[in-house]
Structure formats: structure tokens, C-alpha cells
């Protein structure tokens, strides 16, 4: 039941994002002070807790977003014989974005 398992992951990453992205958004857009200043950013970059949160957020967000995109692409009568190609393309795109985006906080840690 491949599609069912992929969708279960969509739900789990959704619930994860609720907390991870929620925290991230509240801290960086609703808190007082200057959350986007170089000092604040550097402060957070030095903390293992924030690094973990960022990496989880990135993983969950990428899976959830790209699986959502896959659903939408499939709905354009996407032919079954090409679904494997689509899946691999999305996996490659996901890993590439992960590599780039994870490098930034890791290199600053």
C-alpha cells in the first residue's frame, strides 16, 4: 500500500509542522525585538536546540510540500507509467534543496 504509506507521512509531517513551523513563525515574526538581526540569527545558530528544530522543520516541510505538489501534478491526468519518473525527480529535487538549505545553519553552528 505505497500510496497510503506516503499519505500517512503527509499527515505525520503535517502534525510535526504544526509545532515546528508554529514555533519558528512565532519566534521570528511575532516576538518583540529584532529576530532577524545578525545577532539574533547568530545566537540561534550557536544553539543545538535551534539547529535540531531547523533540520526537522526542513525535512518535514520539504516532504510535506513536495508530496502535496506531487498530488497536484498527478491530478493533471498524470500517466501511471511516468509516476516513477515523477517520484524520482521530486526525491532528487528534495535532496538537493535539503543539501543546500541544511548547509547554511550547519556551517554556522
Amino acid at each position: 500500500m505505497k500510496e497510503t504509506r506516503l499519505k500517512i507521512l503527509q499527515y505525520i509531517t503535517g502534525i510535526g509542522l504544526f509545532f515546528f513551523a508554529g514555533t519558528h513563525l512565532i519566534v521570528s515574526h511575532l516576538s518583540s525585538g529584532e529576530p532577524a538581526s545578525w545577532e539574533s540569527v547568530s545566537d540561534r545558530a550557536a544553539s543545538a536546540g535551534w539547529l535540531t528544530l531547523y533540520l526537522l522543520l526542513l525535512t518535514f516541510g520539504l516532504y510535506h510540500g513536495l508530496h502535496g505538489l506531487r498530488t497536484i501534478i498527478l491530478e493533471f491526468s498524470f500517466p501511471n507509467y511516468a509516476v516513477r519518473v515523477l517520484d524520482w525527480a521530486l526525491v532528487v529535487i528534495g535532496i538537493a534543496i535539503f543539501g543546500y538549505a541544511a548547509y547554511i545553519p550547519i556551517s554556522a553552528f
Partner: protein
Amino acid sequence: METEVASSEKPHLPNRLGVKGWVWAGRYTLERYLYTLHRLTGLGLLLYVALHLGANGFRLGGEESWTSAIDFLTNPFGRVVEYLVMAAFAFHALNGGRLILQHLGYTLGKPKPPIYPYVDSMRRRRPLTWVMLAVIVALAIYILVEFVT
């Protein structure tokens, strides 16, 4: 089976509504509109995430490059986008929670023998959905107030 189905459309006009059928909810009611909004906010958030990750690249250039990038983004238009992202997230997150519950059959009740006038499960449970919407609107207003002050 798939090829057969697709080819049976060929002799005539397929008459599919197309993407207009996603966006235009017409005379259908609440959940049909939430479907459109969920898709729209999902795609919007994904686009924002992509731009956001791109902008993070300025970190690699050191303090000066980062600060100038942030300065460039700090303007009324940037604020509006920021607010829209927050509001879209509030909607997508809470409505997503509803979808997860209902996709798994929770809060929908049991099947009932159809007796006229028919009421489907989602309309029976619609008050719950209105409560969810009220929370979303309250959140969106709260965030707006926080943003303005």
C-alpha cells in the same frame, strides 16, 4: 484499465471543467470552498518556503550581506507578505488538522440509512467546522493586531 478509460473520451468532447473546476466552487457550500483555500495556501506556503530558503543564502556572505538583504526586505510590501504567510499558515494548519481527523473518519459520525430529506455527514457536523473557522479568524485578527502595533 487506464488507457482504456482515457481513450473512451476521445470520440467526443471530454467536457471536463479543468482547473476552473478546482477554483470555482459555485453553488457548493463550505467545505468545497475550504478545499480551494487549502490548496491555495499550501501552494502559497510552498512558494514562500522556496523564496525563504533562497534568501537564507545571504547568511553565507557574512553579516554585511545578511543585514543588507534584511534591510532590502524590510518594507511595507514585505510586511504584507509576512502577514499573508502567517494568516495562510494559521488557516492551512487548523484546516489541515480538521482534514486529518475527517480523512480518518473521525468527527463524521456513522453511516445512516438515507431517509428524505437527506443530510450528509459533513453537514451534520458542520458546527464543528464553523468553530474551527472562528478560531482561524480570531488568530488572523490577533496576528494583524500584533503586526500593526
